C-alpha cells in the first residue's frame, strides 16, 4: 500500500512538472496560433475601417480610413497602407508602415496639401493610433515572442470555450506589465484581453464585439477597447473586408503613398 502511494505521488509529481512545462509550451503555441489568426488572416486584406473614439464625457470623434495589409511572411514582416477619409482635415492623408518582427518598424506619412512625405520616428509602439484608445501595437500586433505566456486554464465566455492565457513581457514594456487573453478555442481569436499596469491594476480592456466569417475566414469585425484608467473607449468597425485579393508589394512605396492605389481605394 505504502509502495503504491509512493508510486502515485511520484507519478503525480512527474505529471505536475511536465504539465507545467507543457503549459508554457502550449501557451506559446496557442498565442502564436491566435496571433496568426488575428493579425495574419489570409495573405493580404483590404477593409474600410470606422473608428469611433468616445471620451469619458461621451463626446464622439470619428475616423474613417481604408487599410491595406500584406503579409510578407506568415508571423513575420508585414506592410500596412492607410488612406484617411475622415475627418475632413486629414482626408487624403496616407500612412504606411513596414512592420518587422525584429527591430523597429518604419513609418511614413504623406500630407497631400503640402506634397510632403515624412518618415516618422517609430520608437514608441505604445503611442496612440490617431488619438484612439488603440496603440499602434494594438492595431498591428505585438509579436508573441516578446512575452512569456502561461496557460491558466479554460473557461466559458459568452457560451464559447476559451483558453485563458497570461502574458508577461520579457523586457520592461510601457504597454502592460501583465496581460490576460481569453482565446476562443475554435477560431483562436481573442474574445477579450485585459491589460494590467505595474501595480497590477486593470487599465485597458479589449473586447471582440462582433465576429463574422468573411471569405471563409473568421474575423473580428467590431472591436472595442475600454480605457479603464482614463475612462472612455474606442470602437472599431471593419466593413467591406476582403482577403487574398493579390495586393502587390510595390503598393507600400513612396510612389503609392503619393498616388493612392485606386484599385482598392475608393471614396
Amino acid at each position, binding site marked *: 500500500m505504502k509502495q503504491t502511494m509512493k508510486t502515485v505521488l511520484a507519478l503525480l509529481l512527474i505529471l505536475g512538472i511536465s504539465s507545467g512545462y507543457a503549459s508554457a509550451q502550449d501557451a506559446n503555441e496557442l498565442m502564436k496560433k491566435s496571433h496568426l489568426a488575428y493579425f495574419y488572416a489570409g495573405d493580404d486584406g483590404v477593409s474600410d475601417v470606422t473608428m469611433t473614439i468616445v471620451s469619458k464625457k461621451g463626446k464622439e470623434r470619428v475616423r474613417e480610413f481604408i487599410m491595406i495589409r500584406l503579409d510578407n511572411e506568415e508571423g513575420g514582416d508585414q506592410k500596412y497602407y492607410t488612406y484617411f477619409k475622415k475627418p475632413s*482635415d486629414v482626408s487624403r492623408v496616407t500612412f504606411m508602415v513596414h512592420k518587422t518582427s525584429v527591430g523597429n518598424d518604419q513609418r511614413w506619412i504623406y500630407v497631400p496639401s503640402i506634397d510632403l512625405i515624412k518618415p516618422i*520616428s517609430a*520608437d*514608441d509602439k505604445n503611442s*496612440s493610433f490617431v488619438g484612439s484608445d488603440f496603440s499602434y501595437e494594438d492595431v498591428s500586433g505585438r509579436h508573441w515572442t516578446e512575452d512569456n505566456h502561461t496557460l491558466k486554464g479554460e473557461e466559458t465566455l459568452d457560451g464559447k470555450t476559451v483558453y485563458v492565457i497570461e502574458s508577461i513581457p520579457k523586457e520592461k514594456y510601457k504597454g502592460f506589465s501583465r496581460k490576460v487573453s481569453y482565446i476562443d478555442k475554435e477560431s483562436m481569436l481573442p474574445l477579450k484581453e485585459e491589460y494590467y499596469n505595474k501595480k497590477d491594476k486593470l487599465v485597458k480592456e479589449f473586447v471582440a464585439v462582433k465576429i463574422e466569417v468573411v471569405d471563409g475566414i473568421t474575423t473580428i469585425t467590431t472591436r472595442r477597447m475600454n480605457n479603464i484608467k482614463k475612462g472612455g473607449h474606442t470602437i472599431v468597425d471593419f466593413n467591406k473586408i476582403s482577403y487574398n485579393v493579390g495586393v502587390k508589394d510595390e503598393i507600400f512605396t513612396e510612389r503609392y503613398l503619393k498616388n493612392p492605389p485606386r484599385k482598392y481605394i475608393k*471614396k
Partner: protein
Amino acid sequence: MKNITYILALLVLLVVVSPTHAELYTDGYLQGLFGGQLESDNPTKSDQSVSETRLQLRMESIGDNGEFFSRVDFLYDGLADEDNQYDWEIREAYLKFKLGSKLDFKVGRQILTWGTGDLIFINDVFAKDYRSFFLGRDDQYLKAPQTALRMEYYNSIGAFSFVFAPSFESNRLPTGERLSYYNPFIGSIVGTAMDENFYFNPDEPAKTFGNSEFAARFQKQVGMYSVALYFYKGFYKNPLGLDANTMMPVYPRMELHGASIRGAKFGGIVWLEGGYYNSKDDPDGDNPFMPNSSVSGMVGFERQIATGLTANLQWQADKMMEYDSFVAQQTPGLHYREEVKHLITSRVTKMMVDETVMVSGFVFYSPDEEDLYFRFSTTYNYSDEIRLTVGANVFDGNYANTEFGQFSLNDNIYTKMTYNF
C-alpha cells in the same frame, strides 16, 4: 495668370469628368484668422497683422483613366482697401494620370515639395509663401502653388522625377504692407505706412520659354535609407540681385546641384542634405549686384522622447564662394555675413488629451548672424469639425539687415478658428 489657370482647370475638369462613372467629391473648410502686431513702431498700416475669413473648397473626381483635384480659396480680407477685400486663388487644380505602368503624370496648378529638412529648404526651391508663414496661416500655405508638369518614372534603379514649370514662380515675401522688411537703400526697416513706394513687389523674369524652370530628382531606397540627387535650373526664388541700370531688385539666374540621405537611426530619423548654388549671373563673384555662388549643407535628427512628445534639431552651414571679393564690395560700418553662416533650428511638439491638443514650438537661431525667429502655436480640436488655434511669431536680431533681424518689428500673435466640412 489667374485666367490661364482657370481655363486650365476647366479643361481638365471636362476631360476627367466626362467618363460616365467618375464621381465628384467635395469638402473643405471655413476659417477665420485674426492677428495683432506686438511692436507699436512697426511701419505697417494697421495694428492688426491679419484679419481674414477664408473658404476653401476641395473637389476631387476620380475617373477610370485619371484623377482631377482642385483646391480653391475664397478670401475676405478685412485689412484690404474696399475694392480689394474679396479675393480668390486656385491653390491646386491638376490632373493625375498614368502612362503604362511606370510613368506618373501630374499636370496643372500644384504644390511641389521634396528634400529632407524641416522648414529648411536646400534642394526644394519650389515657391514658398513667407507672408503666410509669418502671419500664422496654416502650414499648407508656406508652399505657394506653381503651374507645372510633373513626370515621375519608376524602374528598378529608382524613381526619376522631372518638373517643368513654364513660367517662373517667385517666393512670396513681405511687401511692407502687413509685414515690414529691410531696405538696403534706406538702411533701415521700412513699411508702407512710411511711404507707399516701399511696397515691395519686384518685377519677375519675363514669361518666356527661356525663363521657364526645370527641376529633377533621382531617388532610391538603399536599405533603411532614402537617397536622392537633385537638380534645378532657373532663378533664385528671392530677388537677391540688383539691376545695375534701374537699381531695382531682380531674380538672378541659378543652377542647383544637390543630394540628400534620410533614414532611421539612433531610435529616430536622421537626415543629411547638401547643395551647390551656382549663381549663373555672377560665376566669379565679382559682380557686386549679383549674389555669389554658395554651398549649403545641413544635418538633422528627430525622435520621440516621450509619449506624445517629439523633438528635432537641425544644423545648417552655408558657405559663400569668392568671399574675399564679397567683402571688398561691402559698405564699411554695415553688418555683413560671415563666409560660413550657421543656422540652428529646433522643433518640439507635444500632443495631449487624446491628441486633441497640440502644443508646438519652432525656433530658428543663427549664432553668427545673431538673429532668431520663434514660432509658437497651440491647437485644440474641439471636435472633428471645429479647431481652435492661438499662436505667435517672434523675430529678433542685433542687425536690421539679417534674414530674421529685418523682420524684428513684425512680432505678432494670432487666433484662428476653423470649421471643417
